[in-house]
């Protein structure tokens, strides 16, 4: 008893500290809710706020609905049926995640605009002058398309793993009892995969809310626009923080609803043998249309933009300096690797907290620490700078004792950048780890504890092996997300530190999208490679 009490303290103590740290920068923002409004707030409210809010809502709702339709249907088809190219599509359908949405936005605009390949071909090969508005992608539906096609893998990945491993027995039972595929889908698959669907979709929603690159380029004014406008344009940080705080309030609401929807239902492993679902062979037109559907999504989300980027790379090859590209690759991989590792370790600790401590608060607290993901990166960045400079000031005596001749140490080092990544992307890693914990439930752990093993030992011997899949998939997704990240990297990096994504930004911000293609391809290549490695690993896992 004595021993286990000590263990609880270590685990819960570190979990509480981690959550506090992750939440700390958000605290300044939450406080903003309570400041009185001023004339800028009144101006925003009178002229633009409601149109911004409604645009954001349309964007979020439509993207969520579409990513769920595409992600879930693909996951279901892959999990249930055998058809040509299934084994390829199974992992290749994750690849669109490797393309940052804003690069996708630039690339698609490059393809369809007046000088793009489609209109040029129509014009020059076929002599057709087409109405340019048919090809205008820079509008709300265009942005919804971009977000959907590059973010649906969040829903797809999480749901597919769930469906093919976890729910096999339920689906099989439904089949045996004579339910057709549609009824099985709506009456069994949909309800039981609710948790993973919502988990994936909430990541999509948060990503859409905090993104600024796509909407800025496409000229769409969203809630994020309002935050930037008041802060940088009007120099009114208070109103800007108030807006950010309102956004956070909205996100908290969404998270609550998610928890509510999850309800008390738990679908954890009921047996140690998790069997994959036996596949039903599809033939004829059914097989062809399923394969076709997969390939279309695959092409839109990966092949088409990549081919365009390769074309641009060839076109601009030699016109931009490339000597240092290896350094950028090294930098990108290094910071993303370190941050992703720390995030997963933190997520494991915090996730375990929810299982060790009982009560509603224990379930809610970890959720709060993922709030950072809803706020635009630039806002987080400035909060982090403030925190680190405060820290450096506090540590000034220490620096003096060590005879440093400068007062800024942490805030000019990579530690600041990596910490910011951790604050921002914890949500992504945590989501994966938490669903992993959900899946394994507490039965095995309780058994282990009953048999006299301590929490830590149980964690490494019982929980960890069962969590392996969640750990790796969480790591890969966080890693890729950090590779793609821009605003934090730009603002928080130390001197002379460039990554692939800052290079992409450098060219894209000057409207030189063709010149940005090299670095973009490298980001996509590294991400795609890690997805493939991840897939191979998962495949080798004994099921």
């Amino acid at each position, binding site marked *: 008893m004595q021993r286990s009490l000590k263990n609880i303290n270590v685990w819960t103590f570190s979990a509480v*500290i981690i959550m506090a740290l992750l939440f*700390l920068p958000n605290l300044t923002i939450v406080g903003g809710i309570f400041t009185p409004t001023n004339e800028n707030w009144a*101006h*925003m409210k009178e*002229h*633009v706020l409601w149109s911004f809010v409604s645009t954001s809502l349309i964007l979020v709702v439509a993207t969520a609905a579409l990513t769920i339709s595409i992600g879930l249907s693909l996951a279901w088809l892959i999990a249930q049926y055998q058809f040509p190219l299934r084994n390829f599509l199974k992992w290749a359908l994750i690849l669109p995640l490797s393309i940052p949405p804003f690069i996708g936005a630039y690339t698609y605009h490059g393809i369809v*605009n*007046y*000088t*793009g390949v489609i209109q040029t071909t129509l014009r020059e090969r076929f002599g057709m002058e087409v109405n*340019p*508005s048919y090809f*205008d992608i820079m*509008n709300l539906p265009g942005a919804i398309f971009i977000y959907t096609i590059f973010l649906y893998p969040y829903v797809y990945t999480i749901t597919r793993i769930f469906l093919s491993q976890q729910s096999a027995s339920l689906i099989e039972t439904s089949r045996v009892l004579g339910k057709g595929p549609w009824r099985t889908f709506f009456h069994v698959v949909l309800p039981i995969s609710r948790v993973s669907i919502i988990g994936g979709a909430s990541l999509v929603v948060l990503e859409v809310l905090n993104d600024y690159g796509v909407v800025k*380029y496409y*000229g769409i*004014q969203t809630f994020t626009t309002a935050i930037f*406008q008041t802060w940088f344009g*009007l*120099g009114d940080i208070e109103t800007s923080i108030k807006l950010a705080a309102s956004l956070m309030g909205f996100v908290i609401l969404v998270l609550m609803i998610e928890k509510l929807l999850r309800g008390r239902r738990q679908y954890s492993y009921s047996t140690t043998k998790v069997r994959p679902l036996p596949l039903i062979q599809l033939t004829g037109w059914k097989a062809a249309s399923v394969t076709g559907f997969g390939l279309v999504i695959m092409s839109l989300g990966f092949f088409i933009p990549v081919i365009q980027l390769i074309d641009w790379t060839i*076109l*601009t090859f030699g016109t931009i*300096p490339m000597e240092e590209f290896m350094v950028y690759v090294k930098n990108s991989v*290094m910071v993303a690797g370190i941050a992703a590792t*720390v995030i997963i370790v933190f997520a494991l600790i915090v996730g375990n907290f929810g299982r060790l401590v009982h009560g509603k608060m224990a379930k809610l607290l970890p959720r709060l620490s993922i709030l950072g993901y809803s706020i635009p990166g*630039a806002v987080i960045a*400035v909060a982090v*700078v*403030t*925190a680190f*400079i*405060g*820290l*450096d*000031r*506090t540590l000034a005596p220490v620096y003096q004792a060590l005879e440093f*001749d*400068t007062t*800024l*140490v*942490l805030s*000019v*080092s*990579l530690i600041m950048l*990596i*910490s910011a990544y951790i604050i921002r992307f914890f949500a992504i890693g945590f989501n994966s780890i938490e669903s992993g914990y959900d899946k394994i439930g507490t039965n095995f752990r309780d058994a282990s504890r009953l048999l006299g093993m301590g929490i830590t030992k149980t964690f490494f011997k019982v929980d960890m092996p069962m969590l392996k899949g969640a750990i790796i998939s969480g790591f890969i997704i966080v890693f890729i997300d950090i590779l793609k990240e821009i605003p934090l990297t*730009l*603002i928080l*990096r*130390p*001197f*002379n*530190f460039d990554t692939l994504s*800052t290079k992409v930004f*450098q*060219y894209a*911000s*000057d*409207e030189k999208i*063709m010149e940005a293609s090299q670095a973009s391809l490298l980001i996509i290549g590294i991400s795609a490679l890690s997805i493939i490695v991840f897939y191979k690993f998962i495949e080798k896992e004994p099921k």
Partner: protein
Amino acid sequence: MKKMLYAALVLMLLLLSACGNQEAGNESSESDAPEDTESKEVNLYTARHYDVDDQLYKKFEEETGIKVNLIKGEADELLERIKREGDATEADLFLTADAGRLFRAKDDGLFQAVSSDLLDEQIPENFQDTDQMWYGLTKRARVMVYNKETVTPEELSTYEALTEDKWKGRVLIRGSENVYNQSLLASFIEIDGEEKAKEWAAGMVANFARDPEGGDRDQAKAIAAGVGDIAIMNTYYLGQMLNSEDPEEVKVAESLGIFFPNQETTGTHVNVSGAGVVKSSKNKDNAIKLLEFLSAPEAQGTFAEANYEYPINDSVESTELLKSWGEFKEQDIPLSALGTNNSKSILIFNEVGWK
């Protein structure tokens, strides 16, 4: 409570540095390096991202032995970072591509006055801050481009004339979040007052060929595509398109005419790229040297040659392309006005519904 949080924060950092240190070590030791005597470094925060700038810094390093350390970012965020770093900031020089932002930096007390005969000689007075807090380095003009087939230059006169009925559904320009547009409107506020400027903005919105989208290059392409007939854009984008690797872009650029508006009246809107020495700079002399280098004829020629910007240094001859566009009369207002009127212009854009 607060103390506890701080303590917790320190703990995490120790944890972090444990796993991040060996790699981070090289980086931070690099920036901690200038312990040795005379500093041979200058730390630059820049919102300009051109490759040609990097080449110039390299050349500066070769000539002077002073290493240029860079953080590239977006102007507003970099300013915010300098502001928060306060006296301890490592930044020596802040460089950005908009006079409004330079003004804001000065207004926030982030710059210090510096003077040098060479700077005075190389940079005309109207492109220096009145208190010598910042210096302009390149000029860019925000002009009109038009479809040569549907518009004759005789039809064009002023920015104001674009609000006339004959241009209904024909005018293209990018969104109002863009600082070039904010500065354009800010200049009108300075010249004609807020009332008139608002009328102009409302008139433009009424004549838009489509809701604003994309960047400056996209406006040019929209003319070629027939979406509209006339667009407002910065000159150097046209230069970039004319020299693009993509033959289709070149074709588009060649189909466009360029027009410098308001020649009979208030002059064409110009903005600058410029830089100021940060107040608590620890390498002030090096920062001034870099400013002098960037405004010297050689660097100025490079800006014009590689980036199609107008040199600020009068002694430098501009390139063939810039010459072919002709001489023009510039707006005669203090550039700081672009900063003082920036907020007003944003409010006006919101009020008239300029997206």
